[in-house]
C-alpha cells in the first residue's frame, strides 16, 4: 500500500536527482574549461548555475510542504532533513563550479601552467566523489557513502601538494604568478566541492541508519585543514 507521503517523497527524490545531474554537468564543464582551455565550457557552467539555483528553491519548497502537511517521523523525517541539507550542499558545489570557471577565465589569459598533473588527478577524484555521493543517495547505499568519506583524504593531500609545489615554482619563476594563483584557487574550489560531497555522504548515512557521523569522521581524520 502506498502512503500519501510516498508520492511526495518520490517526487522530492526525483527533483534532487535532477538537480544533482545539473551539478555533475557543471563540475565536468568547469574542469574541462581550464583543462582543455575551452571558453565554451565556461559559458555552459554559467547557464547550468541558473538551473541549479531554481532547483534549490523548488526542493526547499517541496521539503517545507512535506514537513507541514505530512508531519513525517523516523526514516521519512531523516530523509527530508537530509534532502534540505543536501540541497544546500549541491547549490554550494555549483557555486564552487562557477568559481572554477571564473578562475579559468583568468587562467586562459596566460600560457598554460607547466605541470597540471596533480590538479587533473584532483579534479578526477572530486568528480568521482560527487558521483558516488549522489549515487549513494539515490541507491541508499551506506557503504558507498562511507567510501566517499574515506576518499576525501586524498583530495586534501593533493590540494596541499598543489599549494606547496606552486609556491616552490613561483619562487623560481615569479613571472608566472597569474597562472600559479589560478591553479591554487582552482585546487581550493575543488577541495571545497569534495568537502560538500562528504557532507552529502554523511547525510546519506544519517538517513539510512540514524547515525550522525559528521564529527566522528573529522575526529578520525584528524586533518589540520580548516573546514
Amino acid at each position: 500500500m502506498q502512503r500519501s507521503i510516498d508520492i511526495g517523497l518520490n517526487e522530492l527524490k526525483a527533483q534532487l536527482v535532477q538537480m544533482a545531474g545539473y551539478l555533475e554537468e557543471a563540475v565536468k564543464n568547469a574542469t574541462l574549461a581550464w583543462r582543455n582551455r575551452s571558453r565554451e565550457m565556461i559559458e555552459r557552467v554559467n547557464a547550468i548555475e541558473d538551473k541549479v539555483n531554481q532547483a534549490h528553491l523548488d526542493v526547499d519548497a517541496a521539503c517545507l510542504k512535506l514537513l507541514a502537511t505530512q508531519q513525517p517521523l523516523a526514516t521519512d523525517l531523516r530523509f527530508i532533513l537530509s534532502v534540505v541539507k543536501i540541497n544546500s550542499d549541491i547549490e554550494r558545489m555549483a557555486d564552487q563550479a562557477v568559481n572554477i570557471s571564473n578562475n579559468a577565465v583568468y587562467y586562459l589569459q596566460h600560457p598554460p601552467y607547466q605541470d597540471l598533473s596533480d590538479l587533473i588527478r584532483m579534479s578526477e577524484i572530486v568528480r568521482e566523489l560527487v558521483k558516488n555521493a549522489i549515487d549513494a543517495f539515490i541507491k541508499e547505499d551506506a557503504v558507498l557513502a562511507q567510501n566517499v568519506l574515506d576518499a576525501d583524504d586524498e583530495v586534501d593531500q593533493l590540494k596541499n601538494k598543489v599549494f606547496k609545489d606552486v609556491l616552490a615554482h613561483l619562487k623560481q619563476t615569479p613571472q608566472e604568478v597569474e597562472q600559479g594563483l589560478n591553479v591554487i584557487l582552482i585546487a581550493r574550489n575543488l577541495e571545497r566541492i569534495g568537502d560538500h560531497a562528504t557532507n552529502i555522504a554523511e547525510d546519506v548515512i544519517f538517513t539510512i541508519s540514524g547515525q550522525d557521523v559528521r564529527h566522528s569522521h573529522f575526529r578520525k581524520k584528524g586533518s589540520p585543514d580548516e573546514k
Partner: protein
Amino acid sequence: MTETLLSVQNLNAWFGMHQALKNIQIEFSPQTVTALIGPSGCGKSTFVRCLNRLHEEVPGAYATGKVILQGKNIYESSVDPVLIRRKVGMVFQKPNPFPSLSVFDNVVAGLKLAGIRRKSILMEVAERSLKQAALWEEVKNKLQQPGTSLSGGQQQRLCIARALAVEPPILLMDEPTSALDPISTAKIEELLAELKKTMTVIMVTHNMQQAARISDKTAFFLLGELVEFGQTSTLFTVPKEKKTEQYITGKFG
C-alpha cells in the same frame, strides 16, 4: 541511576481466555510524561487500567505479575484497590463528570468519599485543583452549576481537577484529548507540562504528533507486547525496532 516511581514486572492480563498483555516489563520515573502508542487493540488501555487495578473490574478479566508503586506491589492480596486508585488517578477518553453534581462537588467528590467534610479544606482543595487543571478562571463564578453544563474541553479539565484533588503521585490518561477540539487539546497539553513538575503522567494517545510534543518517554505496544520503550526524541527519529519504524511512519496500523 534514574529513580523509579512505578515498576511493572512480568505483567500479563487476560479477558477470559484472551491474553491482552504479554509479560510487560517497564519502569516509570517521577516527574515524567510517558506516552503509550500502538494500534487499536494492542493492549495500551488495558495496560493503564492494570496500573490502578481497574482492569479486574471487567467480568472475567484478571492480571498476573507485579506492579510496584513506591516499593509495594499493588497486586498483593492485602492491598485495597480503592486506595490504589487514590494514588493512581485516571482520566478517560470522554469527559465523565458526575452528572448530578455541581462543578465544586465533582472536584471534591474523592475527598468526601475519604471522609473529609470540613468546608474550608474542601474549598481550598477545589480551588487549588481547578487552578492546577487550568480551569479556575473559567469556572470560579459557577462552582455551583452542574459539571455537565461546561463545554467538552472544560468537562475534561474538570475531570483532571477531580483526579488531582486527592493528590495522586501518578495520573493515567486514556486518550484524554481525542474527543476535544484543537484549542481544548492545546490547553490540556500545556497543563501536562505543569503537572509533571509534581507528578508522573502516563498517557495513551493515538496522535503521534501529540506523543512527540508532550512526552519525555514513549512506549510502543503491539499485539499485547511492549515492542520498544525509550526517549521520545529518539523513538520518533531513530527507532530501534523495525516494527516501531513501520508503525510511526504509517506503514501499518
